């Protein structure tokens, strides 16, 4: 099982991005996803910076995938996506069908991100035939759903052509909108956001009127209010899942990488289980609502 680090979903200052990636270079992670996936106005690192980072990671022995914008509306965003898809050095993660279109028409292999709706064997096989070599499953899928999909004879025949990756740690990307909710939270419009996301390195917490965490605002993206964490569910992934993705957080990401690495490499007697922090959730994987916490 490989450990991967997803793209930074938040907007961090350049110096912090670079510091974070220096730490990742020394970590136990096997594969790193780099790039802006949420908002095209976020430019502390530009495309060239990400390519430089990608080369450095490759030299450090890590696999690299360039990840791309999820909600593409403006022609300029599509152009930028096309440029990313036309470089031949690194694998690209498609988070919108436009990227699948650009990559498949050039017959380039690609990774499919979780915001692409692949829910069944037919779609899975079509994507493999178009060039999918890595699949990050939709966040709302359960272990049972994934197992049933991959057990289908149609999918089984293509299973070896792609890796299967599951988001195992971090705030879940749950929705994308035209509206920027972080700008709205400070009474600004998206056009006049003045890059307010820089002030919220972990997004903004939304609580219900009786105080429970409901969502996390991250620009045009709405994330889960609770952190998703499958550290206790790794044993059930053997033979089904090839890679576990951790999403970067402002702090503690490195500690969690080590925790997942240790959990994956522990002897069966040690894996019994670690305590899932009370506030973390894992419902989706257990075929429940995402916000449930199952500690079996």
């Amino acid at each position: 099982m490989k450990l991967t680090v997803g793209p930074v979903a938040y907007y961090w200052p350049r110096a912090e991005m670079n510091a974070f990636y220096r730490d990742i270079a020394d970590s136990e992670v096997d594969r790193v996803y780099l790039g802006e996936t949420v908002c095209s106005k976020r430019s502390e690192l530009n495309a060239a910076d990400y390519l430089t980072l990608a080369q450095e990671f490759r030299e450090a022995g890590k696999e690299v995938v360039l990840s791309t914008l999820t909600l593409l509306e403006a022609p300029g965003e599509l152009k930028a996506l096309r440029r990313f898809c036309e470089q031949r050095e690194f694998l690209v993660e498609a988070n919108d069908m436009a990227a699948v279109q650009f990559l498949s028409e050039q017959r380039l292999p690609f990774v499919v991100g979780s915001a692409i709706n692949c829910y069944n064997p037919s779609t899975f096989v079509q994507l493999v035939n178009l060039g999918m070599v890595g699949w990050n499953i939709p966040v709302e899928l359960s272990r049972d759903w994934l197992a049933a999909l991959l057990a289908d004879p149609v999918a089984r025949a293509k299973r070896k052509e792609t890796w299967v990756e599951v988001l195992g740690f971090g705030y879940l990307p749950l929705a994308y909108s035209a509206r920027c909710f972080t700008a709205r939270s400070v009474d600004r419009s998206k056009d006049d956001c003045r890059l307010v996301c820089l002030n919220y390195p972990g997004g903004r917490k939304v609580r219900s009127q009786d105080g429970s965490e409901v969502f996390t605002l991250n620009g045009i993206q709405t994330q889960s209010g609770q952190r998703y964490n499958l550290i206790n569910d790794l044993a059930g992934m053997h033979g089904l899942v090839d890679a576990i993705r951790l999403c970067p957080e402002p702090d503690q990401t490195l500690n969690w990488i080590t925790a997942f690495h240790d959990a994956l490499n522990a002897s069966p007697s040690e894996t019994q289980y670690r305590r899932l922090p009370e506030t973390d959730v894992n419902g989706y994987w257990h075929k429940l609502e995402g916000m449930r916490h199952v500690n079996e």
Partner: protein
Amino acid sequence: MELLCPAGSLPALKAAIDNGADAVYVGLKGDTNARRFAGLNLDYTQLKTAAHLTHQAGRKLHVAINTFVHPERFADWQAAVDDAVEAGADVLILADMAMLEYASRAWPETELHLSVQASATNLGTIEFYRKQYGVSRVVLPRVLSMAQVRALASKSTVPLEVFAFGSLCIMAEGRCYLSSYMTGESPNTSGACSPAAYVRWNDDGDVLESRLNGVLIDRFQPGERAGYPTLCKGRFDVEGSRYHVLEEPTSLNTLSLLPELYREGIRAVKIEGRQRSAAYVAEVTRVWRQAIDAVIANEQSFGVKAEWDSTLAHLSEGQQTTLGAYHRKWN
């Protein structure tokens, strides 16, 4: 420009036809479409009647099969597609690559429209679905501004359809899992958002609370209008401020944009609301028929009539309407 109206039942379908819809869209019973409500949608016999009624009136019938196929249940969605075509549907509205592939192969003569649930917001994506499955129309998500719609319309090789009126989804459709995060049921997998089975109202005399699967969505003071607890329209707290964090309870109304949509060659305007009553469908259809006829007659002199606005406002969520993302400032 075509007026496409919703029907969750045969009376609603008749109301749409009688009031001037060019086409009507329906769904089959079960979870193959994104409006799975108790008592709503058509069975096979009703679908045949629907096809007969629409064709008799010289209109078209679209059938939405726009949820995503579950593993091990391909046959259910396949049956929905086959039933729809055999019953006489003119158009299938599909979102899942699995169904697009199946329908384009099994029923090459049937027109395929890309559902809003497929989240096609740009030319690259539109090109993908045209090339792979030959879709002849794309329904745009409600996340684009008018300027972006214009830019797409001028370059798209596939005719476009936009949402004109009704409930406002503020997230890119087909990419929103907020409902399954809270209830386990999402539009993609269950055809439901914030399903009624999870809603609880608690009235302690002073304050009325709405909850969705235990999560407090809103509290209403006496005299305040209490809306259905759709989770993206709740009032929540962000560091001490309490407000509609994502969106107010409001409906989309683009009447004032109609001349512009017409000029850009938008092929169809779609009215949301298969879950609505026949009376609702009748009133909304009547207003939009008059408006479209007025635009076609003379787009220069088109003005939104006060009576249209008041009828539509009266039918809208919270009696408020918005241009939504079409208006740049909304974003």
